[in-house]
């Protein structure tokens, strides 16, 4: 067929001539590379050469096929790249700042051309440090108590030994006795015995009448103790059998130290623990953490749930917030949990808490236990793109993927 349109050329010559057209043909198929004169020349040739015309059509088909199969990069890969880049840029900026600072202190032009002087200066610095450091270390005064907490004498200096004051939950601590006898290694130290000074608005600071235990044990001596100077100095959890809530031992710091012991079903113990969580700023983080751990088996109780939620939102310590989160995870309705987790992810400055929140969200999403909502997806997508923590960005992307696939499946 081509020979008919080659107007008498030999086949070999025609093929050779057509091969000369190939680069132009290829550039024309690629688009936008030929000038108008070349385009018109090629068009004229294609009009008279069926072989080249077929070839041109084949080339376009091949390119169309390749274009159709050319996909976008995987979204997760792109998200991972973005997260990695942000971290690398942050590191780069930090390194830049450090090197700039060091550059001011130790400009290379200052040291490198004078190796002898540099060595002498380094030796002098080393000598001074070697001579002065031991003296400074030996004569270092004892560290003062922090202004914030005015830490009272630790339990080690005033070992709390327990003398039963009544049969229920209260024991008086006598000084100069071995500490926590009988608890031994079985005691789970939930808190160090670190006393916090009693604030004026503490329930213990007011007259005993203002402290009304919700479920006072018969014969409880709690109300009889002068609690105006008392505060919670430590919380210990003592392991118990399966399914039984642990014994809680509360060390109350007062002029006459005493200990309260019982399960969290004991009204006095429970009230003190709830008070600790609701007024967390009055207690040390260890005490608050102990309260969360002690209360967590009863997280379905409305009052406990409320106190744990309060701790999750308000507590200053990430460890306390994480523990509250874990305690709530097993108790609250899933939509409430999801909302709290999203709040924690959005509002918490601590990456550890946010990581815990997204981990929990992911496990819930994987188990199909949360119903995706527009708000949830929007918050998660925001974290997927903008969270400063790479892990949270990656996990958010995974949760979004899971929730979207669930949504699509449901439809």
């Amino acid at each position: 067929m081509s020979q008919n349109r080659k107007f008498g050329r030999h086949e070999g010559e025609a093929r050779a001539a057509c091969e000369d057209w190939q680069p132009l043909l290829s550039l024309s198929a690629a688009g936008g590379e030929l000038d108008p004169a070349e385009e018109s020349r090629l068009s004229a040739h294609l009009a008279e050469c069926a072989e080249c015309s077929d070839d041109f059509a084949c080339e376009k088909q091949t390119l169309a096929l390749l274009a159709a199969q050319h996909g976008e990069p995987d979204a997760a890969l792109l998200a991972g790249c973005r997260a990695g880049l942000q971290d690398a840029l942050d590191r780069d900026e930090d390194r830049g700042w450090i090197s700039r600072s060091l550059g001011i202190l130790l400009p290379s032009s200052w040291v490198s051309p004078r190796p002898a002087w540099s060595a002498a200066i380094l030796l002098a610095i080393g000598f001074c440090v070697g001579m002065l450091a031991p003296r400074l270390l030996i004569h270092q005064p004892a560290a003062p108590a922090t202004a914030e907490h005015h830490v009272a004498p630790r339990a080690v200096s005033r070992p709390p030994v327990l003398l039963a004051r009544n049969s229920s939950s209260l024991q008086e601590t006598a000084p100069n006795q071995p500490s926590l006898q009988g608890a031994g290694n079985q005691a789970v130290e939930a808190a160090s015995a670190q006393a916090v000074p009693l604030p004026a608005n503490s329930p213990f600071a007011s007259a005993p009448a203002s402290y009304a235990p919700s479920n006072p044990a018969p014969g409880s001596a709690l109300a009889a103790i002068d609690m105006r100077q008392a505060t919670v100095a430590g919380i210990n959890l003592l392991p118990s059998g399966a399914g039984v809530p642990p014994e809680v031992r509360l060390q109350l710091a007062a002029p006459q130290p005493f200990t309260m012991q019982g399960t969290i079903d004991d009204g006095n113990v429970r009230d003190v623990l709830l008070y600790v969580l609701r007024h967390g700023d009055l207690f040390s983080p260890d005490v608050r953490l102990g309260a969360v751990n002690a209360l967590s088996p009863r997280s379905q109780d409305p009052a406990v749930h409320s106190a744990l939620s309060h701790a999750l939102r308000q507590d200053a310590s990430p460890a306390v917030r994480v523990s509250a989160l874990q305690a709530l995870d097993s108790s609250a309705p899933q939509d409430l949990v999801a909302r709290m987790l999203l709040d924690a992810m959005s509002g918490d400055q601590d990456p550890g808490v946010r990581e815990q929140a997204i981990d929990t969200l992911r496990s819930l999403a994987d188990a199909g236990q949360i119903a995706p909502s527009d708000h949830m997806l929007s918050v998660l997508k925001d974290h997927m793109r903008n969270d400063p923590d790479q892990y949270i960005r990656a996990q958010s992307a995974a949760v979004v993927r899971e929730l979207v696939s669930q949504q699509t499946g449901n439809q």
Partner: protein
Amino acid sequence: MSVAIEGDARQAALAAAAEEQALVRKAQSGDRLAFDELVRRYDRDVLRLALNVVHQADEARDVYQESFLRVYRNLHRFRFECSFYTWLYRIVTNTALDHLRRRTTRREDQAPEFPDADGATHDFFDRQAEDRASASPEKQLLGQELNRHIQDAMKSLSPRERAVFELKHYHGLRLRAIGEMLGTSEETAKNSLFRATKKLRAKLDAIR
């Protein structure tokens, strides 16, 4: 009428170029948010280019990161002698080619793998087939088969040919710009594209 539309398009293009120039200047002055915005504009294309040149997800990720870090560190040297994306793609292409040169084994031509939910891995091209194929298993199978052929065909290209082909056909760049990016002439870029197309057709014509 068409002249008016062309005029509008031209105005819009000029406005977009001016806006991008302002963004680059802000980034040059140390505005991290402006730089992040530039990244968001181009990073999808950068990753796609990297993936199609190096053909491995991990390495593409490295190319992506290394390229943008180079851009970040050298942005103050950008003098607006070409468009920002031309400058960016030049860096990406050279970074990707550097990676390919550094490779010591021939494993580089394996397609990038992505684990799925059940732990099985599918390469990048299989994944595209899954995404594109309709619910029909036959179509899906055909799509996968086709992708395997395309993957084989792409393997036959040299890294430079692959880069030129990618930049021309999937990023719409002119060969002159591609030549500049690769530090070569327009003519060499033309030859690379021609060779690439010829090789691909030789592999793919049989299955069309």
